C-alpha cells in the first residue's frame, strides 16, 4: 500500500519558491512596516491623539489631504477631457501627447520638483506672467496644488483610457437611434459606464498626491501651519529625533492609504459586476 498522505502538485518547487517569497517579503516589506506599527503602539492612545491633533500636525495633514483631494478633482476633470481627446479624436501630435502622459510617472520626483519650482517661481516662465496677474504660485499652497496636479495626471488618464477604448460604439448608436442627442448620450450612456474607472483614477491620484514628497517640497513654501505637507513634517520630526511624533503621523497617513486601496479594490470589483468583460 503506497502512501499518498501529502497532496502533491504537478510542478516542483512550490515549497522552495513559496518559502523564499514569504521570507524575502517579510524581511524587506512586512517586518519594516510592522516595526512602524509596533512603534506606534508604544504610545498611549492619549499621547497618540495629542501628537496627531497638535496644531502643526493638523495643519500639515489638512494641507496634504485637502490639497491632494483638490488636485485629484482637477485631474478628474482635466484627465477626462484629456483622455477623451486622446481616444476619440485625431489631431496632429496625438501619439506624442499620448506618450508624454506617462512622464509625471516616470520622471524622478526631485527633477519634477525643481523643474516646477523654476517654472512657477516669480521670475519663472509661467510664474512671471502669473505674478503680473497677482497670482503667486511658488512657495505658497498654490504651488503645492500645482505640483500635486502634475504627479496625478497619469492616474486618471491611464485608468480611464482602456475602458474608454473598449466602449462599444454600437451602444452609442443604439442610443442615437432611440432619439438621444449627443449630450444625452455622453451624460447618460458613456459617463456612467466610465464611473468606476473615473473613481478609481481619482482615488489613485489622491493616494499618490497625499504621500508625495520630492515633487512638492521645492515649490512649497514649507512654512509650518501654512504650506507644510505631512511628509515634510515627518522628515523634520525625524531630524529632531522625535521618533514618536514621526511615527504617529506616518501611521495616520498609512491607514488612510490602506483605506483608499481597499476602496479602490471594491470599486474595481463593482466595475466587474456592472460591466463584466464579455
Amino acid at each position, binding site marked *: 500500500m503506497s502512501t499518498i498522505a501529502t497532496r502533491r502538485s504537478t*510542478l516542483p518547487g512550490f515549497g522552495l519558491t513559496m518559502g523564499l517569497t514569504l521570507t524575502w517579503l517579510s524581511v524587506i516589506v512586512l517586518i519594516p512596516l510592522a516595526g512602524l506599527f509596533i512603534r506606534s503602539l508604544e504610545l498611549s492612545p492619549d499621547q497618540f491623539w495629542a501628537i496627531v491633533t497638535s496644531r502643526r500636525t493638523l495643519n500639515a495633514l489638512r494641507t496634504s489631504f485637502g490639497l491632494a483631494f483638490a488636485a485629484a478633482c482637477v485631474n478628474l476633470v482635466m484627465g477626462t*477631457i484629456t483622455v477623451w481627446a486622446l481616444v476619440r479624436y485625431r489631431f496632429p501630435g496625438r501619439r506624442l501627447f499620448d506618450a508624454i502622459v*506617462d512622464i509625471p510617472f516616470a*520622471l524622478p520626483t526631485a527633477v519634477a520638483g525643481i523643474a516646477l519650482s523654476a517654472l512657477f517661481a516669480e521670475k519663472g516662465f509661467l510664474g512671471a506672467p502669473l505674478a503680473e496677474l497677482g497670482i503667486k504660485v511658488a512657495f505658497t499652497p498654490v504651488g503645492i496644488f500645482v505640483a500635486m496636479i*502634475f504627479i496625478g495626471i497619469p492616474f486618471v488618464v491611464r485608468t480611464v483610457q482602456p475602458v474608454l477604448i473598449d466602449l462599444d460604439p454600437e451602444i452609442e448608436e443604439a442610443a442615437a437611434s432611440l432619439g438621444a442627442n*449627443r449630450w444625452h*448620450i455622453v451624460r447618460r450612456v458613456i459617463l456612467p459606464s466610465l464611473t468606476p474607472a473615473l473613481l478609481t483614477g481619482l482615488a489613485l491620484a489622491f493616494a499618490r498626491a497625499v504621500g508625495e514628497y520630492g515633487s512638492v517640497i521645492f515649490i512649497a513654501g514649507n512654512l509650518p501651519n501654512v504650506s507644510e505637507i505631512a511628509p515634510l513634517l515627518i522628515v523634520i520630526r*525625524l531630524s529632531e529625533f522625535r521618533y514618536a511624533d514621526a511615527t504617529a503621523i506616518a501611521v495616520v497617513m498609512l491607514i488612510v492609504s490602506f483605506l483608499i486601496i481597499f476602496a479602490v479594490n471594491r470599486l474595481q470589483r463593482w466595475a466587474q459586476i456592472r460591466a463584466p468583460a464579455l
Partner: protein
Amino acid sequence: MTMELPHSFSIAYPKETPRLSARHGDPRTEPKAVRIAIIGLAVAFLGVFVVLPLVVVFAQAFSKGISAYVAALGNPEALSAIRLTILIAAISVSLNLVFGLVAAWAVAKFEFRGKTFLVTLIDLPFSVSPVISGLVFVLLFGAQGYFGPWLASHNIRLLFAVPGMTLATMFVTFPFVARALIPLMQEQGTQEEEAAISLGASGLQTFFRVTLPNVKWGVLYGVLLCNARAMGEFGAVSVVSGHIRGETNTMPLLVEILYNEYQFVASFAIASLLAMLALVTLIAKTVLERHLDEGKPSHDH
C-alpha cells in the same frame, strides 16, 4: 423577430435624419466646436503641466552654455553621485529580479488559498509614501531603533550609509518585476511546464529552458521600470542617507543639495541626466509593450 415598429417611426425616420443631424448634430460624435475646445484644453493642459517642466530642465541646464553643463557633470561630487546611483540601482534591481522570478513562479504555477492576499502584500510598497518607506528603516536601524544598539555594538553602519539606502530602494522598487511577471506567467498557464516534466525535465531545467524564455520580454519590462524607479528615488533615500556629501548622495539627492545652494546649472545638469533616463525608459517601455502584446499566447484551436 417579427416586431412591429411604431408606424410613425418607420416612415418618418429615413426622411428626417438629414434635418435632424443638421439641427442637433451627428449623435455619433460631438459638434465641431466642442471637439476643438476639448482638444485645445487637453493640449494646453498637457503642455503646461508636462511639456513645460520638461523643457525647463534642459533650458536651465544649458542656460550657461555647454561647457558649464559638461563641467557640472564632470565635478567629482557629481561623478560620485552617479556612481552611487548606479551601484544602488544595480543591487536593488538584481535582487528584486530574483525575487520577482521566484514569486511569480510560486503565484502563477500553483493553486493555493490566499493568493490574492499575497499579491496585495507584494503590492504594499506602492501605496506607501516614499518618506514613510525611509522612516520604517530609521525606526528599525536608527540609533533609537529596534536594532540600533545591536548594530552600533557590532560597528555596522546601515543608516547614513549605502546599505541602508539600498534597503530603502529595494523596499520602494520591490513589486515592479513581480507585477510584470505574475500576470504574464498566469496567462501562459502551466501546460508547457507540465509537458516538460512529463518528458523527464527537473524543476530547474523546466524553469530555465521552458518558462524563462517565454517570459523574457516581461523580465525586461519589469527590470526597466524597476531600474527607473531605483535610480530616481528621492524621498525614501533622503530620509535614510544623512546627506553626507560625496559619500551618501545619489543623483536625486545631489540635485536637491545643489538646488538649495542656488547652483542651478549644476542641479539641472544632473537633473537632465535623470530626465533623459526617464525618456529612454518611456521609449523602451513602449517598444517592450508591443512585444508583450505580440507574444501573448494564442490558444491553439
